[in-house]
C-alpha cells in the first residue's frame, strides 16, 4: 500500500532508544504496516506533548508524517496504557519479553494483523494475569503460528504417523513432535511428556479464556518453557535477551 505524506495509525510501542539530545526512536507494531520505526521528537523533555502517550507497552493512536529516513510522530493519544501491567515488576518483565520477541521475529513494514491482535490481547491478559507464564507460552505458540512456524503437534513431524500417548520427542529442527522411530535419528530432539503435548495441543487451538483454565504444576510449566525456548532459540539462531532477566526474577522470588 502507498502511504500518504501524513497518516494515522494505531500502534503498540515495543521498543525505544535515545536519539541525540532529547529525541527517541520508537519501534511500533501497527495493524496495517506491521513493524515500523519512527522518531518521537523531544519526548525525553517532561513537557513533551507526546510524553506518556509513546511510553513502552502502550497502545496509542498516532499521527505520523513521512520523513526522509524515518517517519516522524506528530501527535499521539493513548488508547490503553495498560497501567495494571506497569504497576507490577513481573508483568512489566513479561511485557518486555513479548515485545522483544515481536521485534526479533518481524521485519519492517510487513502487515500481520493477526500478530497485532495477538500482541494487543496478550498485553490485556498480562494486565490481569495471575500467571504471566501461561500468557507467555500461549503468546509464543500463536506468534510462531502467525509467522509460519506453527509447531506440528498432531502427528510425527517427520514421517506423519500418529503419535502414541506416551512421552514423545520434540525436534526444533523438524519443527514439531517426532515419533520414537524418527526420534532415534534426530540427535538433538528432546523428550516431551504426554501432559506437555496435551497442553500445547489445546493452547494451539483455543482462545485465551480457555487457555487460562489450564492448571499447570511447576514441573510442567518448566518443561513447556524449555521446549518453547529451545524452539525459539533455534529459529532465531540466538537467545532472546530478556530471558536472563525473567529467569533472575523468578529465581529471586522463589528464594524468598
Amino acid at each position, binding site marked *: 500500500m502507498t502511504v500518504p505524506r501524513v497518516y494515522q495509525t494505531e500502534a503498540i510501542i515495543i*521498543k525505544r532508544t535515545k536519539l*541525540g*539530545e532529547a529525541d527517541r526512536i520508537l519501534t511500533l507494531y501497527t495493524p496495517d504496516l506491521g513493524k515500523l520505526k519512527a522518531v518521537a521528537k523531544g519526548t525525553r523533555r*517532561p513537557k513533551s506533548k507526546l510524553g*506518556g502517550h509513546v511510553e513502552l507497552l502502550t497502545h496509542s493512536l498516532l499521527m505520523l508524517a513521512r520523513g526522509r529516513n524515518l517517519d516522524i510522530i506528530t501527535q499521539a493519544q493513548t488508547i490503553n496504557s495498560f497501567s495494571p501491567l506497569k504497576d507490577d515488576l513481573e508483568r*512489566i518483565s513479561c511485557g518486555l519479553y513479548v*515485545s522483544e520477541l515481536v521485534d526479533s521475529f518481524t521485519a519492517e513494514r510487513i502487515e500481520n494483523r493477526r500478530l497485532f491482535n495477538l500482541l494487543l490481547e496478550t498485553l490485556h491478559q498480562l494486565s490481569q494475569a495471575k500467571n504471566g507464564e501461561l500468557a507467555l507460552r500461549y503468546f509464543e505458540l500463536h506468534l510462531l503460528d502467525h509467522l509460519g512456524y506453527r509447531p506440528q503437534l498432531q502427528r510425527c513431524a517427520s514421517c506423519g504417523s500418529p503419535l502414541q500417548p506416551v512421552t514423545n520427542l520434540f525436534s526444533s529442527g523438524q519443527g514439531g513432535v517426532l515419533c520414537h522411530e524418527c526420534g532415534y535419528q534426530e540427535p538433538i530432539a528432546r523428550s516431551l511428556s504426554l501432559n506437555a503435548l496435551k497442553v500445547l495441543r489445546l493452547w494451539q487451538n483455543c482462545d485465551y479464556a480457555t487457555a487460562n483454565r489450564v492448571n499447570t504444576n511447576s514441573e510442567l510449566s518448566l518443561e513447556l518453557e524449555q521446549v518453547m525456548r529451545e524452539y525459539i532459540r533455534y529459529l532465531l539462531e540466538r537467545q532472546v535477551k530478556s530471558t*536472563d532477566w525473567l529467569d*533472575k526474577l523468578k529465581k529471586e522470588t522463589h528464594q524468598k
Partner: protein
Amino acid sequence: MSIDFMPAAEPIARLIEEFNKLPGIGPKSAQRLAYHLLQAPAEKAEALAEAITAIKEKLSLCSICLNITDSDPCIICRDGERDPSKICVVEEPIDILPLERTRKHAGLYHVLHGVIAPADGIGPEELKIKELLSRLDGGLVTEVILATNPNLEGEATAMYLQRLIAPLDIRVTRLARGLPFGGDLEYADDVTLSRALEGRQEM
C-alpha cells in the same frame, strides 16, 4: 564516514573526521570547527586540547557514590554538611545536576549508570547495585530516595531496588508523580523537581 566536498591536508582531514563523530555535529559543522581552529591562535587550540585530555586523565568515578569526579571521594561525598543518612539514587551522573539545583536534597547520591533494560541485555549485574547495597550495610542510612526516570525502565528499576532494600529496614521513597510519565529527569524544571522531591512517597 568520508567527507567528500573539500579535499584537505591530512591533519585537518583527521580533525574534521573526529569532530564529525561527535553527537549533533554533521560534516559541514565539523569542517567549520576544524578551519576555525586552524586560524585561531595556538593558545586557544592548546587550551581546548588540554581540556579534552583532562576529562579523560583527571576524571574518574567516586569510589563511594560513583559520580564522575576529579577527586576521590567526590565533592558531595566529602562535604561534612550533608546528611549521610539519605541517599538519592539516580540513573546517570547528569541527573545529579537538576536535583542539586533544587537545593531540596541535603543527603548523598548513588549513580546506577543505567537502568534495567532486559531486551538490551542490561540486568542488575550491569548496574552499580551491588555498590549501593554495600553502602546500606553500615546501618547509617535511613532513607533511600529512588530518583530513576519516570518511564517504564526507570519504574521497573525502582521496583526492583525497592524489593532488594525492603528487608533491610530502610525507608524507601520514590519521587512523587508530579513528574510527567515518559520524560527524563535530566530535562525536568526546578519547580516540578522540587515538588517531586518534597512529595516523595513510600514505596
